Each structure stands twice: as structure tokens, then as C-alpha cells.
């Protein structure tokens, strides 16, 4: 766990959404936190450099931009796990990949610029690994708020 102080927490919580569309947005947010614009920018640079934040900016809905996002899983034999990880991760379309405890033990997200790109990536993973890909495209998204308190 990273070292973050009370001000870091207040900054992260204040910046979960609603960043203002004004000429000097950092100044506006800094004023609500009682700090200077320069301090806010320095803190953000530091939080990003230390990977406490993975990103700061607009979060685009990929599907609305014509792209596609699909969760998929593989049941990888334990003896082949490292080899298959390298093969799957070699595709630029694989955005995230997690090992999970289940017979389906590798779960990854395919992100492509077009819906057709998903099928191509699935076929490529199947041919590289010789394993069947289980695709779990979302059929419906239920509303969640960003709400993990720092």
C-alpha cells in the first residue's frame, strides 16, 4: 500500500468526477480544497508518478466511440500458465489480464477499435494457445457510481 497523506486522500476523493470545464479548472478545484493551483498540480503529478492514480482525465465509453470491450476467459493448464500468459499478453488488444482462482483461471479484457476486432483477437488467441476462449460480452450494464473512498 502506497504512502498517502490526508491531503492526497482529499484530492483523490474530490477528483472522482465532475472536473470543471472552465479555463483554469485546477485553480477552481484547488480553492475548494484550500490549497494553491500549483500544489494541486504537483500532488497530481506525484500521485501519478507513484501509480497511486493510474490516470487523470476524461474516461471515454469505448462502445460509444465505435469500439468494443469484451471480457473473456481461458482454462489454462497449470504447467502452461506462464507460456500462455506471454502469448495472450502479446496481443495489443489485451488491455487487462488477471489470474483468478477458478477452472477458468485467466480472465482478460479485449479492447478493440471496432466490434469485428474482437472476433479476430479471439481467433488469434485460440490459434496461438490451442485453448478455447470463453467470451463474456456484456449484455447490459447496471449503473454504478465511482465511490471507493481513498
Amino acid at each position, binding site marked *: 500500500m502506497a504512502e498517502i497523506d490526508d491531503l492526497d486522500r482529499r484530492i483523490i476523493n474530490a477528483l472522482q468526477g465532475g472536473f470543471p470545464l472552465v479555463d483554469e479548472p485546477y485553480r477552481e478545484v484547488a480553492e475548494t480544497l484550500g490549497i494553491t493551483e500549483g500544489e494541486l498540480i504537483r500532488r497530481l503529478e506525484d500521485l501519478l508518478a507513484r501509480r497511486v492514480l493510474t490516470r487523470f*482525465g476524461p474516461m471515454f465509453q469505448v462502445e460509444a466511440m465505435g469500439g468494443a470491450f469484451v471480457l473473456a476467459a481461458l482454462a489454462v493448464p497449470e504447467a502452461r500458465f506462464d507460456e500462455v500468459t506471454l502469448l495472450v499478453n502479446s496481443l495489443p488488444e489485451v488491455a487487462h489480464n488477471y489470474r483468478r482462482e477458478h477452472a477458468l483461471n485467466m480472465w482478460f479484457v479485449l479492447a478493440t477499435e471496432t466490434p469485428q476486432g474482437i472476433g479476430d483477437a479471439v481467433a488469434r488467441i485460440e490459434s496461438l494457445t490451442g485453448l478455447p476462449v470463453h467470451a463474456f460480452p456484456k449484455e447490459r450494464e447496471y449503473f454504478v457510481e465511482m465511490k471507493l473512498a481513498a
Partner: protein
Amino acid sequence: MPEFDYVPDELDRRLVVATQAGLPLVPRPYDTLAAQLGVSATDVKERLGVLLAQGVIRRIGAVPNHYALGYAANGMSVWNVDDARVDELGERVGALDFVTHCYRRPRHVPAWPYNLFAMVHGRSRDEVDEKIASIARLLGDACAGHDVLFSTRILKKTGLRISG
């Protein structure tokens, strides 16, 4: 697959490319984007406002690394929920304050009977288990079974990259 009425244009695409690494950390970030894109700062702010209103941009903000914030346990809970009730119940599960993603997805029977996915973050596995028990209570007899897949290793995390 969700449908969107909004048809993105060239400026939208260039805005994605210009901001995918993040918003510039300078006092006037929209001016910086405007100069890169060859439009006015007013155009940039107005367009971002339209994209937010249309849901094309979910939000403009910080994406925390859950692990760095102390949310060390991350369980993908999966539920076999009555098709007639899954949408009503999915909305209620998504509204719980510890659920960060909630989707309906296809079953792959017989190996995978689950149609509702809810991602639960907690500071420990015990905390995640408690939260999952409260989802089970919410779903009640509409749920015929569930499982929790804890992540034991991040194998890759990059996010989408759209080429310029």
C-alpha cells in the same frame, strides 16, 4: 451491446487520442488541447460538455489504483439469477456502495451458469466475503448459485490505446 445515438466525428476521435494519456497537468489544460487540435479552447470545453451529457465520456477525473489505496482484495462475484428478475436485481446490486462494476453477461452452460457479474473491492478477503454475503441476501431466492473469483495476480494492465 449498448446502443448509442451519438455519432462521433473526427474531432471526438482526435480528442480521445489527445487525452488518452491524461488531461494536461497545466493551469489551462483546455487551451493546451485546443492548440494541439487546432480549434479554440471554447470548442474543446463545449465538445467535452456534449460528450459528458451524451454519456460518451463517463466522467473527467482520477482513476485510482485500488491496490495503492489499500483495497488489496478484489473478488469478481458471479451469480446465477432468474432471467425474469436479473435486470431489476442487477440495478440494485450496482447501487450497493462497494460494487464497482455490474454487468449482465451470457451463461456458458454447463461450465458457467452465471449471468450477473459484480466486482467487489475490499481491504481484505474477509471484508469482500462479508460484502458478498450481503449481495446474496439481496438476491434471495432469485439466485440459484454463485461463486467468487479472487484475482491472485495482475498479468497485464494497459487500457485501450487508439491509434492517431
